[in-house]
Structures are given as structure tokens and as C-alpha cells.
């Protein structure tokens, strides 16, 4: 009987983390931030059909970066959890925190027990009655969950983009200003991002039940060009 090579657990975890990080770094970043009337999520995404941002429930949205098939199956599972919970109990009982925890548990399980970690980083956002009650949970490939205050960035170049985004933030942002802050942070000083390369959605505080709304290119272009 042949013995498998001994690999230290530290090494196994490190290899998996490197693998996941590399996968995530290949994709473009995504930014989310609170503004006066809701939460805006902006992703660099040339595809019109393969969405990175999506609706989960009345006031909850999902966003993912990394490997599409993996975060898309996480999205579906989240919708399932939320809809079953809302149907079994009540619509009010569906909240972002418990959903984020469920995601964290799953990602942690996959990271520790499966051969291949998930190459994803995801965001669960819930819009509240005012800016202070908005919730942004960022969950990374190994199940670490971070409760972000006001804004967050996901993806390969997250730290740099986040610095730029933080520099653009003010206390009173309307939707157009929030969009421009997110887009200029994602683009950086050397690039200009066109509406066709952006996927934008908002969770609007003022909408009746389903707060999620996609901002389509027709609406985006004038908002972006208002920069000057």
C-alpha cells in the first residue's frame, strides 16, 4: 500500500487560497455604495445578459465577482432560501444578515472540505429606511464575512479601487453622484468606462415592495455624461 505524500494543513489552505484569489483576480471589480435614496451597485461587465448583479428579495440584492457559473449558482440558492423563508414565515422575516451567514457557511464548508474552493467573492446588500440602516455584507471565497459601512468593493483590484472610491465619497450623494463616484473609482485615472461596459442596478428606498431595479444603458448615458 502506498502512502500519500504528507502535506501540512497550512500548506493545503494556502494553496487553496492562492488558487481562489488568482481566479477572482482575473475578473473585473465591482463597487457598491449607499446614497440618499438607496444602494447603488456598479460592475464592469461588457455582457448584457450574464448579470453580476441580481435581485434576491424585496429589499435584498446580490452581486458576485469571479467565476460566473459559481456565483450564479450561489445567486439561485440565495433566491431559493429567501423565497422559501418568505413563503414559510412572512416577507418581513427575510433579512440580509441571515442570508449572508448562510452564504458564509457554505463557502467555508466548500473551502475546507472540497478539493477546489469557489473562485468567488459576493455581496449581499439590503436597503433600509435610511442610509444608516443600509447593510452591505461582503463574503469572500473562504467564508469570511465583513459588514461594510457605506461602501465596498469586490474583485481582484479591490484595495486600489476601494481607496479611490472612499476618496470620492461625501455625506450627501444622489444617484447620479453615486454612479459617477463608483465609475471613476472602477476606471481609475487612465481609463474611461462607457455605459456599454457597465452593469448598474439600484435598491431604491422609495419603491413600494420590490426595491431592486436595473439601470439600463439608455438611462445610464445621460447620468454619466453629467460629469462635466
Amino acid at each position, binding site marked *: 500500500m502506498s502512502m500519500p505524500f504528507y502535506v501540512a494543513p497550512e500548506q493545503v489552505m494556502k494553496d487553496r487560497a492562492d488558487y481562489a484569489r488568482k481566479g477572482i483576480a482575473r475578473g473585473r471589480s465591482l463597487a457598491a455604495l449607499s446614497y440618499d435614496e438607496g444602494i447603488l451597485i456598479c460592475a464592469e461587465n461588457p455582457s448584457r*445578459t450574464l*448579470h453580476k448583479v*441580481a*435581485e*434576491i428579495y424585496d429589499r435584498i440584492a446580490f452581486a458576485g465577482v469571479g467565476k460566473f457559473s459559481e456565483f450564479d449558482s*450561489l445567486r*439561485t*440558492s*440565495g*433566491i*431559493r*432560501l429567501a*423565497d*422559501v*423563508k*418568505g*413563503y414559510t414565515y412572512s416577507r418581513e422575516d427575510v433579512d440580509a444578515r*441571515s442570508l449572508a451567514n*448562510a*452564504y458564509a*457557511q*457554505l463557502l467555508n464548508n466548500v473551502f475546507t472540505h472540497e478539493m477546489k474552493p469557489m473562485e468567488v467573492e459576493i455581496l449581499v446588500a439590503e436597503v433600509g429606511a435610511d442610509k444608516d440602516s443600509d447593510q452591505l455584507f461582503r463574503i469572500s471565497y473562504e467564508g469570511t464575512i465583513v459588514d461594510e459601512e457605506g461602501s465596498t468593493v469586490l474583485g481582484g483590484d479591490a484595495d486600489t479601487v476601494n481607496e479611490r472610491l472612499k476618496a470620492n465619497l461625501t455625506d450627501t450623494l444622489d444617484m447620479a453622484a453615486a454612479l459617477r463616484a463608483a465609475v471613476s473609482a472602477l476606471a481609475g485615472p487612465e481609463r474611461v468606462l462607457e455605459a456599454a461596459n457597465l452593469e448598474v442596478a439600484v435598491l431604491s428606498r422609495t419603491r413600494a415592495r420590490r426595491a431592486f431595479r436595473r439601470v439600463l444603458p439608455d438611462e445610464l448615458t445621460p447620468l454619466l455624461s453629467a460629469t462635466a
Partner: protein
Amino acid sequence: MTLPIFASGQDPGSSFSELLRRMNGDQPLLRNTGAVEITHGTTIVALRYSEGVVMAGDRRATEGYSIASRAIDKVFPADGHSGVAIAGAAGPAVEMVRLFQTELEHYEKVEGMALSLEGKANQLGGMIRRNLPMAMEGLAVVPIYAGYDLRRRIGRIFKYDLTGGRYEEGDFHATGSGGRDARTTIKLGYRDGLNRAEAIQLAVEGLYQAADEDSATGGPDVVRGIYPTVATITVAGFDRVSDEEVAQRFGELLQRKTAEGHPR
């Protein structure tokens, strides 16, 4: 609750009821020996007009000979551009509406686009068909489904039988215990191209005549201010008509009937 994760052969896809079955198993069949009275909802109507569809339902629910509720709602939004009205055993009917609403929204979110109106109508048919064993036990649910078809740009009405058979109606339909009277009233007053006010008036008159002939259908309750639930569905979406407006239509109807002298 933990995230529902399925092996690839077990995945319920975009169906919510399939998902529930995978998670909870099949629910036991309710048996009705006739020993208990079951709450029944009664008359509902739907008719087309120039902008879309009007749906309406009276507010009475009965348990045998007694009145179980004076203010039950029988007309519900199914999603943004369609509505469902229910007659039959109130418990399973309201539950079916809730499941149907969740089903439509679930599909829309998972797939990223809404079902066609026809697809939604068929979906409801399937739910009624699955309720057939319960219908045989006396817990029948008979809805009307109506909506604005955004692709064809017209209002459409679907009726169902107990087996889930789905039939599209041209201009109007009414069902429930007073359905026949409501249907006749609407048939006599119907013409093409009714406007919104006329359509609401006709729906309300259908319910009024049904209440006149059928003990299980509630008439307008002026003392308590309870009037039928009325909703319009147009290109702008599902919109519940305010109680004030329905009260006003009823006021006009009663005035006319008084002036004309209602036959005894």
C-alpha cells in the same frame, strides 16, 4: 435555515413548488368527511375593456349557512401585470394564490425574465390540477386569471375547471355561487370598447345582481362601508380601484335602480 443545495439531477430549476416539494416532501392529503363546515368564497367576475381588464369580487365568505367574513378579499395581484380572483374553499384558495404569487416572482428572479401571460396561465392550471384530490374532498378552488399581455398588448381572461383545464374567455367571465347571475348581467350590458368607468360599473352591477339572487354573495354594505374589491389591469399594471370610487359607482347604481323602480 441553510442554503438549499441540490445535486445536479435533483435540482428543481426555476419552479418554486418543485423546490418546496424537494425540501419538505409531499404534503399529506386533507380529508373532508363533511363533519366540519369549510369557509367558502363566492362570486368573482372579470371583463375586458378598452385599456385592459377589470376584475372584481364580492366580500362575503360563508360557512354553511352562516357568514364567515364580511370583508374577505378575493381579487389579488398575481404579479405586476396580472391578477387572480378566487372562488371556492377559502383556505386552499388563499394558499394557492400565495404559492402562485411566489411561483411567478421566483421564476422571474431565477430566470432573469418573467413568464409570458400564457405561461403564467398554464402554471396556475397545473396548480389547480394538483389540487384535484382535494377538490374531490369538497375543497375545490376555481379561480379566474386575467392580465395584460405585454407582448400582444391586450387584456386576456382565463377560466379554469376543477381538473385544471384552462380556457381562454373572449370578453368576460364570472364564477362562484352567484357566477351565473353575474355572467348574465354582464352579458346583457357588454359591448366592445367599454371605457374604464363603464367597465367598473358593469362589474359592480354583475355582483349586485348576483347578491340579489344568491345568498352566499354579499351585496354592498353601506353601513359598514364594505364594497366589492375591484382592480384594473392595464399596460400600467395592476391597480386596485379605491373604495371611494367603488362606493360612488354603487351610489349611482342604487340611485338608478331606485329611480327606475326595481322589479319585485
